[in-house]
């Protein structure tokens, strides 16, 4: 299968994730622990497109996030840029075609994104600790689980290995 087909498949999955994020998530999930499909899309895109493209994608996703919920404009942009770049960097260190590794990348990316966002938006220390210690890990788990499900569904397209 050509690289062009691969890109089309990746774009199709990303569009699906955007629809999941803005249409399915508000209908099915409630509250702080709902999976973040945008971040999952960013991580899998970055892992398959390289650090530069990952950083640019993170910048754009962060910009959109800041426009929708600007606790401090620029905080999400900064956080997602770092996550996009780091995800692309991480695939050079780990086995990025493994399902669990992908899910782990997503979980770690979400936690790091929250850490940077909370710090950059001036969150008080008590709330920061609770968010990073309880809510962020739980949301990271739900996002990783949802991501693993999506990757499993599209495992042929993403050449994902299921063995540990």
């Amino acid at each position: 299968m050509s690289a062009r087909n691969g890109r089309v498949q990746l774009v199709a999955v990303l569009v699906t994730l955007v629809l999941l994020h803005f249409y399915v998530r508000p209908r099915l999930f409630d509250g702080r622990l709902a999976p973040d499909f945008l971040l999952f899309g960013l991580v899998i895109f970055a892992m398959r497109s390289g650090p530069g493209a990952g950083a640019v994608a993170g910048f754009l996703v962060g910009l959109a996030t800041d426009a929708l919920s600007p606790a401090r404009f620029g905080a999400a942009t900064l956080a997602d840029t770092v996550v996009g770049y780091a995800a692309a960097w991480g695939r050079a260190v780990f086995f990025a075609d493994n399902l669990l590794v992908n899910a782990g990348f997503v979980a770690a990316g979400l936690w790091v994104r929250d850490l940077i966002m909370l710090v950059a938006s001036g969150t008080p220390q008590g709330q920061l600790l609770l968010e990073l210690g309880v809510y962020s890990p739980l949301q990271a788990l739900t996002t990783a689980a949802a991501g693993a499900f999506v990757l499993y569904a599209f495992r042929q397209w993403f050449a994902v290995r299921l063995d540990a």
Partner: protein
Amino acid sequence: MFPASDRGFSRRDTALFAGCMLLAVTALFTPDRITLAIATGLRQTVLAPLVWLQEQAEAGRGSRARLKSLLAERDSAAFAAQFLPSLTAENERLRALLGLSHRLRTPYVAAEVLHQAQVTDARMLLLSVGQADGVASFDPIVAPEGLIGVIWNAGQHTSVAMTWAHPEFRVSAFTANGSAYGIVAASPNATGSDAYLEFRGVPYRDSVVAGTVVLSSGLGGVYPKGIPIGTVMGVIREEAGWARVYRVRPAANPASTGHVLVLIGRRVGSVGEAFSSDTLEPSPRSDSVKVERRPRPAPPRATVPVPPARPKADSAAKAAPESTVRARPDSTPRPPRRPRAPPDSARPDSTP
């Protein structure tokens, strides 16, 4: 097949990363005026289809459950409305006796909260109404339980709201029994689910017992008087030996609120007018006043009588809870204005 990339790092990648970081950091330190314009522009253009999509999802979610709830509320309101004419007449008579002005009429628009997946979601909310619906910056936002926050930036069809959980949020408040005034703000020490507010600047002589309800005072001209903010839970600390800070449990939770009301009526312009508007009366929906709203008219000061003296705080406090139990005019049509109540009460001029 589209496997994970095996491409190595290049200078181009590093340059792109550095450029994005530079832009992100610049955005962090850019003045709010500019960033708000950028955010509004993005929401109205590139992100408009996504916002529309989420609006549809939020509106569709739980519509059946909401219908049941609305039917129950409508039945309750219809039952309560049977006593409305006599209560209105009695209220007018009593207010005339006390020398109080008429209540403020505060129109509103209903809005869906478009929750985001970010960790800071409860601090800033995206609402499904904007300038096209008559919403403007600094319009107060309430839920059935109490105060949620204020409109921070209104776009054409969406708005961004600052909730009470935001570190910069402040509202002038007083206790329901009228014993103390102060400023309510988010606590810097609050932790997630244990989020609470602080009632600051309460003088030593004005002690507030636990369980006292705190309401917006109307001072400052942003929030109308009488919106429930929360309940006092106890003293947190003392400030410089002259004031106490109380812990307040918030009445409404922005993180779990899906439906809010934006009060779009004219705001009280001065302190004198704020004291004259001691209570609220049933409010018309925005569609009946939308035409009047654009452009927002200047407060018709001449039509708001300023009382000669400050009314008793307790009278305002007693009347304030009524403001939380408003009937929607479209569900309970306003009865025709009745003539003055018959002289069966204790009015001095009516006694033979």
